Every structure is written in structure tokens, then in C-alpha cells.
């Protein structure tokens, strides 16, 4: 899908330029934008190094574990089909906390472990209710601090790179709430259809 969109943008642009007489601009923009992308990536290093460094300390200091403990009562309610002390619950909690702290690389393997445990519970190659709920939460996103976006804003000399943290959290909460509601809605609808 992304392959299609990507190629489509370039192809349409070049063909349009042929008839619009803007080939010179296209040629210039091509090299300038590649150069800009490289400068941008280099510029991102500063904040990414800083943030991931701090997160490493947070992880070792046990802040993620405390958060997992706080989240537990809520998460147990969201997954009624998973026994409270099943290993799946532990992995789900660690995946959520890693996501909240923006540790995408740590969250993915934990999430895959959670999926494996949930598959043991269901034992089929059809997605179970808990799996879909888990992925709905993951796709809606749980990040509190969008560090990469802040880095890009800094790179383009924003007067306040972090001013979007508040709006991001609110939009994220809206997406998360609706993901949970939609998940419930489609689950109960699928039950009714079976009857």
C-alpha cells in the first residue's frame, strides 16, 4: 500500500510537470529535498539520544514496574477473558508501560510474547477477543511524549517545540477511548450474529 502511494506521488508529479512546464523546478526540488532529509535525520540524533538515554535510566530505576502495578486493576477489567495471574497479563502490562514511555523497540517483543500467550489460551489461528482488544489499544497508541515529533519541530526552529504535547495526549486519549468502545461494539455484534 505504502509502495503504491509513494510511487504514485512521484509518477504523477513527473507527468504533471511534463505538461505544466515545471520540470526545472522538479529537478531542483529532487536534490534539495534529499539533502534536506539527510540534514533532518542528523538533526534528530540529539533529542533521540537524550530521550532514549533518560528512558534507559527510568527502566532500570523501576519506574516502568511501578506504572505497571498502577495500571493492573484497569487492565484486568479490559481483558475479562484472561485469568488474572496468567503470564499473558504480565506481558500485556509491560507492553503498555513500554509504549507509554515511547520505548517502541522494547514494546514490540513484549507485545509479541503477549500475543503468544493469548494464542495458547485460544488455541486457534483465529484472532481471539483479547487479541483484538490488545491490538486495538496498541494501534490507537499510548505514547505520552512524542519525542520524534518534538525533535523535528526543534529542527525547524519552533519557538515552542513541546507545545503540542498537550494536544497530542488529548487526541491520543480520544483515539484510545474510541478504540475500546469500537472493540466492544464489534465484539458484541459478532456474538449476536452467531446466534
Amino acid at each position, binding site marked *: 500500500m505504502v509502495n503504491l502511494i509513494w510511487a504514485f506521488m512521484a509518477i504523477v508529479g513527473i507527468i504533471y510537470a511534463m505538461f505544466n512546464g515545471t520540470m526545472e523546478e522538479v529537478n531542483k526540488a529532487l536534490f534539495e529535498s534529499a539533502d534536506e532529509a539527510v540534514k533532518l535525520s542528523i538533526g534528530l540524533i540529539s533529542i533521540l539520544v537524550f530521550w532514549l538515554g533518560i528512558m534507559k535510566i527510568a527502566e532500570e530505576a523501576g519506574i516502568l514496574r511501578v506504572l505497571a502495578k498502577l495500571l493492573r486493576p484497569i487492565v484486568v477489567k479490559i481483558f475479562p477473558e484472561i485469568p488474572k495471574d496468567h503470564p499473558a497479563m504480565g506481558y500485556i502490562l509491560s507492553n503498555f508501560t513500554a509504549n507509554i514511555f515511547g520505548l517502541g523497540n522494547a514494546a514490540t517483543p513484549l507485545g509479541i510474547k503477549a500475543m503468544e500467550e493469548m494464542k495458547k489460551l485460544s488455541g486457534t489461528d483465529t484472532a481471539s477477543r483479547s487479541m483484538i482488544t490488545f491490538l486495538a489499544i496498541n494501534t490507537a497508541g499510548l505514547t505520552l511524549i512524542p519525542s520524534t515529533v518534538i525533535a*523535528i519541530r526543534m529542527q525547524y526552529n519552533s519557538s515552542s517545540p513541546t507545545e503540542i504535547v498537550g494536544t497530542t495526549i488529548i487526541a491520543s486519549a480520544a483515539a484510545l477511548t474510541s478504540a475500546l468502545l469500537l472493540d466492544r461494539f464489534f465484539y458484541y455484534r459478532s456474538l449476536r450474529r452467531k446466534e
Partner: protein
Amino acid sequence: MMGIVTTISTWLIPCFLLLVLGVAQWKKLPSYELFVEGGKEGVQLAFSLLPFLVGMLVAISILRSSGALDASIGLIAPILTAIGIPPDIVPLALVRPISGNAALGVTSELIATHGPDSFIGRLASTMQGSTDTTLYILTVYFGAVGIKKMRYAVKVGLLADLVGIIASIIIVTLIFG
């Protein structure tokens, strides 16, 4: 409302730093060494983003500099503005559920073109940060454990993305508009 949100935005990160370093100090952890160890991942991450950014920025700049982007935005603009959606944001909304890194490229391009403190710049930042990449997550997680029937998972993920996009537009308009 606006005052509270922007104050939280400014205070959140420094206060979090204080908490992390305070706890680390209290637990007598080698904080500097841990910082350096974690920071190395940041270098790798920035370099792994490089090809995604080059690819996306070049493709969009071709579309924009040829005049095709403005022409197509001009076509759909009346409909979108009537329902309150800034037309420039459409490419980001389309790419966001499909590829996170590609969307980051689109976001960068929007910020570079319109400025980080413009309405479009703030909206793109919020949209980029507020949801995760639905199709990527479904592919990776279901693929890893061999789930073949995804049932209503795709529907839930994409509809939640739509809500996230609409919520971003409303919130950014309310706070910064």
C-alpha cells in the same frame, strides 16, 4: 483551557526528568552510564530513519514542485474546508495508518513547508504523535503468532485512527486556532 494545556506541555518533560534522576540517585544507580547505553540506541534510530525520510521527502517534493499537489488540493479544497478539514493535511491522514516512518516523512515535509508553529505544522505534529501505525501493528503482531483470521481487528484499528484524526483537528483548532 489553553493555559492549562500549554503549561502541562512545558512542565511535563522537565518534571519527568527530575523524577527519573531523583529515583535513580536514591537507588544509587550509575545514571550516567545507563544514559550513555540507552543513548546509543538513539543514534541507530536516527540513522535507520534516514532512508525513510529521504524517500518520502523526495516523492512529496516532486509532487509539490510540479504543481500537481496544489492543483489537486485546489480541486478538493472547497469540500474539505466546508467541513473544517485543512486540505494540506490530507496526504498525512492517508499515510498515517499505513506506515509510521512514511508518515513521519510527510509530517516533516509539512512542518518544513508551513513552519512548525503554523496551524498546519501543529496539526501535523499532533496527528503524527497521537495514533500508532495500525496496519503495521496488525501485520507484525498477527504475523508473528500465525493468526490468519483477523476478524474485526482492521475495522476497529482504522475507525479509531479516523477518530484520532478528527480529534486532532478539533483539539488543535480549539487550543491554537
